[in-house]
């Protein structure tokens, strides 16, 4: 098995995905490394890529005028970053910055969309996995809204 395919099949996001599909999507992926402090994307950038993180840590930040940047979530080993490539207007809504040396697999979203059109079963499988992640993040965001640790929680 080629290195990229092996890295993909080892990542929890692709756990138990049919090896045929792994081979298909490997054609849309490349290995990337980000240095500590490096911006991976900025708010408003076209959402043309997504990443599965192999190791390291990334922070998602919003810039609030008068308050400066605020970290709203950190992602690390085993996490997936970026789903705005799936829904219009296909733009990034946050800044993403590596907090430490981070290794990831980067996917070309156009290429993935093309493969999903060719192989709707692969598309269904990927969208199922992404919806699960979006659901988990939504849940975590809701918990933060209720001030989980406050005296009145």
């Amino acid at each position, binding site marked *: 098995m080629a290195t990229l395919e092996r890295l993909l099949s080892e990542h929890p996001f692709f756990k138990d995905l049919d090896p045929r599909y792994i081979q298909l999507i490997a054609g849309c992926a490349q290995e990337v490394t980000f240095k500590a402090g490096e911006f991976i994307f900025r708010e408003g950038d076209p959402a043309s890529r997504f990443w599965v993180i192999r190791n390291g840590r990334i922070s998602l930040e919003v810039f609030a005028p008068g308050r400066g940047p*605020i970290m709203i979530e950190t992602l690390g080993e085993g996490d997936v970053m970026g789903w705005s490539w799936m829904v219009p207007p296909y733009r990034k809504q946050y800044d993403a910055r590596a907090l430490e040396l981070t290794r990831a697999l980067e996917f070309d979203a156009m290429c993935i969309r093309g493969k999903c059109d060719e192989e709707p079963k692969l598309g269904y499988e990927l969208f199922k996995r992404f919806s699960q992640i979006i659901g988990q993040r939504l849940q975590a965001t809701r918990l933060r809204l209720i001030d989980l640790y406050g005296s009145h929680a």
Partner: protein
Amino acid sequence: MVVTLKPQQIPVAVSTDPMVPVPYRLLRVRRETSDTFTFEFGSVDGSRFPFAPGQFNMLYLFGVGEVPISISGDPERPEILVHTVRAVGTVTTPFCKLKPGDIIGVRGPFGSSWPVVEAAGNDVVIVAGGVGLAPLRPAIYHILNHRGEYGRVAVLYGARSPGDMLYKKELAEWRGRFDVQVEVTVDAAKPDEWQGNVGVVTTLIPRAHFDPHHVTALVCGPEIMMRFTILELQKRGLRDDQIYISMERNMKCAIGFCGHCQYGPNFVCKDGPVFRFDRVKEIFGKREI
């Protein structure tokens, strides 16, 4: 001649009546956050205060009132009584203004404890939210004092912001050890003041290193935080009898007489505050209880 007694030779502080407070003098105060302080007391007669991790005392602020507060010190240093108090109301707000030398009344220790002895031989995962780290700190001390008796140990802590975290120095020390996984997360932070995790405490559970079949989980924080933590632990494969939680209810007598702290068929002061989750799961989170 001056005779120096070893800690274990110092007599134990006892009141013959559990309703009568014993006087304790405040020795030191440390500010933890904007509204939370850690107090170290010594008994006026120099006696020791043995307790089990997870137990609490009734602290009496003379002329104001009495509140249940967990003991947050090291069980192997019973010569110092440590409490961490968050100022929320009538008693705790003036309590947090105490100065060294001030005297309070102490009744206790009361209640059940974390199963640190029973957990020996197992992995341990400790999940705390906000001030919930205070009742768990004695359990962490015990485990670290007897580190060889346990498997993998993970401490997961969530706070609203970096400024709301308790025991920052100790968390950093524990993190520096090679034999404990310490993960801390906050709800939001500025990048120039925080380089750690951002997200709720439940997001740390999938990353904690433990064997789900041989782990004991100790959980403390507001009830809503414990509810979602339990769900996440269950997703990792823990059974209800592997999970322990600490409950809070209003208290008066603290010895099972008045019924103020009733929690379903239990009294939190006597049967709790630490409960094994399978024993309270039918009533946990019920609106009317």
